[in-house]
């Protein structure tokens, strides 16, 4: 089942085409990687899906519903979870409270002024934290977490929305190789269990070729290749503009 469908989206900044006529779709339970050189338009592409940027043309549909140009807030409401390249969590709250706030937003219980926040959705938050392996750290301040743990927390926050689509922007940036694989395997398991479509950008080729079902390659704003690992690896254009010889990326 197709969750996200992108049809011919384009975006220019000051006359420079950042993204040109890009189309693709992601199915439920599928892990789709978006790769390409720095400055190829990956971030712009991502921002058009999550509502940060409105496309100049083209259409984005989520489960058959047109979400082109909606605000990030509306897009979250329609079931899109996100993790950020540079983690964004609430530093003055504990790990559990971070998830609780996301649950309060998801269940539309934000406008409550009396009953203390800790009494809302505590068990549900703990359940999500257990799923990402963060149960033991639930009472710690989010501001003091190690980087890898922040990434897991972000995943739990994204899951609080019971998302149909999960957007992960360079999810393993700044992590150690072992943690990278662990995090993305976790994302993969969650995606297949819950039928979540996952779209992620990534520069670690071990991760990309290890977990992605399908790979899209963007160069200078255009989609230059699409396919599974072996197909992308043997694509001469992709090798030239992005993969190189593979000497410093594990032979991919």
């Amino acid at each position, binding site marked *: 089942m197709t969750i996200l469908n992108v049809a011919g989206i384009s975006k220019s900044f000051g006359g420079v085409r950042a993204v040109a006529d890009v189309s693709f779709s992601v199915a439920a339970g599928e892990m789709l990687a978006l790769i390409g050189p720095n400055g190829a338009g990956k971030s712009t592409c991502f921002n058009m899906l*999550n509502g940060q940027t409105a496309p100049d043309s083209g259409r984005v549909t989520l489960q058959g519903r047109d979400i082109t140009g909606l*605000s*990030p*807030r509306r897009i*979250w*409401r329609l079931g899109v979870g*996100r993790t*950020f390249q540079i983690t*964004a*969590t*609430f*530093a*003055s*709250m*504990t790990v559990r*409270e971070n998830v*609780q*706030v*996301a649950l*309060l*937003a*998801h269940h539309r*219980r*934000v*406008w*409550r*002024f*009396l*009953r*203390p*926040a*800790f009494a*809302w959705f505590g068990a549900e938050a703990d359940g999500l934290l257990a799923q990402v392996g963060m149960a033991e750290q639930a009472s710690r*301040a989010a*501001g003091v977490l190690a980087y890898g743990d922040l990434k897991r927390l972000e995943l739990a*926050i994204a899951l*609080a*929305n019971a998302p149909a689509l999960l957007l992960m922007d360079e999810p393993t940036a700044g992590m150690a190789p072992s943690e990278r694989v662990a995090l993305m395997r976790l994302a993969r398991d969650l995606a297949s269990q819950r039928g979540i479509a996952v779209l992620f950008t990534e520069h670690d080729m071990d991760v990309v070729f290890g977990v992605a079902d399908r790979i899209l390659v963007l160069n200078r704003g255009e989609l230059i290749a699409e396919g599974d690992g072996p197909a992308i690896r043997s694509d001469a254009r992709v090798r030239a503009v992005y993969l190189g010889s593979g000497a410093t990326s594990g032979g991919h």
Partner: protein
Amino acid sequence: MGFVLVQFLTGLASASSLFLVAAGLTVIFGVTRVVNFAHGSLYMLGAYLGWTILSRLPGGPAWFAGGVVLAGLGIAAVGVLIEVLLLQRIYKAPELLQLLATFGVVLVVQDLVLKLWGPNDLTLSRPPWMRSFVQIAGERMPFYDLLMIGIGPLVLLALWLLFTRTRWGTLVRAATQDREMVAALGVDQRLLFTTVFALGAGLAGIGGALALPDGSANGQMDLTAITDAFVVVVVGGLGSLPGAYLASLLIALLQAFGIVLLPKITLVLVFVVMAVVLVVRPNGLLGRKLTLARGEANTLALVRPAEPALRWLGVAALLLAVWAPWFVGPFALSVMTEMLVAMLFAASLHVMMGPGGMPSFGHAAWFGLGAYGAAFAVKGLALSMPAALVVAPFGAALAALVFGGFVVRLSGVYLAMLTLAFAQIVWAVMFQAVSVTGGDNGILGVWPAGWASNPRVFYWLTLAICVACVLVLRRALYAPFGYALRATRDSALRAEAIGLNAGSLRLVALVIAGAAAGLAGGLAAFSKGSVFPTYISIDRSVDALVMVLLGGVQSMAGPVVGALAYTGLFDMLLMVTDLWRLVLGLSIIALVLVFPQGIAGTTYRLWLRGREA
């Protein structure tokens, strides 16, 4: 025609004086990110020092120029002193705490100036060349004003060359963005900041000395200058020199013609201009969205509900407060009533500043509207005191709702300055609508109802209302609403991504804060029996700010402790010394250095550390 031209040229001349002060402020802010509230004090010191130097020199133009430069150098040295002794220790402290420290400097300088130069305005006897006129289109234009017209653009050009064409300028621009990285590249970043501060201070000093021929050195010019300079810097866009010049032109010209066309508006014209600019351009005319410079503190402490031991402490304090009227005298009782009102006022600001992340320089607006609302209710509408105490918060909340829509779209210093603009506009209305508000004379005879006329009863009533309100506010902050609000402060990006509506959350926080401040104002009106425009003055807004920062913005305990400490300290100082500004200023500076997280915040941290160890 000639009249218009002369008016125009006069405008240009005052634009130059405005720019001189504003340029220093914007340079210092741009690089160090310190909101230097003491910049007006440097300007004032420049004027006094300039007077001391110039009144001893011969009257020729060259002597004058030399004297002005000398005054500038002297003030640059004062700037170095302030930077090395104070600011260097608090560059890593939160922005608003730095502001508080420089406010301490303002108070210290006020008393020092009084001691050194006395209370009288000092004027310069002007030599003939300064008094000469030039005929322009049939009108007489002072020669000195023509000189001033040239100085603004000259300084702008010199600064621009300095920042773009010299290695020093390149280093400074780099440090603006990432001071830590600059240091790691082998640049003595501390020295760089000291020179920047010296430059900014020197410009203020020169500005002050140049203002002498057209005015005087006086004890009020620090606050006037800082307000004007702030407005200019904010209208132009923080950190932008061309923006500052543009804003100086805009404001000075509007001022020059406004005084002719609409004499009444001059009191608030600058604030109206600032409000309009900020509503249309949230980052000023030429400013950019402020990002946090690298190496700046951005750590947010975990907020936890109070521990049982602290709650018992609170209960004990409350019991003591209930019992107090039986053993304190009438004066102490009135001070204590005042402290309670201050506590509610500070707590309401905390809602905005702490979890809301919206610093306000104009919180007195809601306080004053509440006070006037209550006064109108009893005097104009002949309502009872309880009814008036309902009118007060609702009136203030309504105004907060209307203004708030504009305010919550901004952030940081811009937001704070827009609140100040609104407060000044409200103040001007109350000041000038004499037929309704009595203007400067205020509204008198706002006395409590008969059953509450006994000071003790009124004290208890105030105690009950203030404590209840503070507890209700606190409860809301620990409820989902408070968490969602804090979430928008912690990470706007993440808050938006989980579907929180930052705009509405902040607006509701502002309305709640406005209502609470309004209620505090209403109580103040009845406790004093009168209402004056001073209720909405900048001083009162600053008081609230100082109380919250002194206590700490982390939790509700902060403003409560801060309000009690500040009001207490203030009243005590007034009694024992006439150098109360000096002592208060030094106390504030000491507190900032010793309690970087506010009294309550730091104490709590130390207590936690002791227990964890």
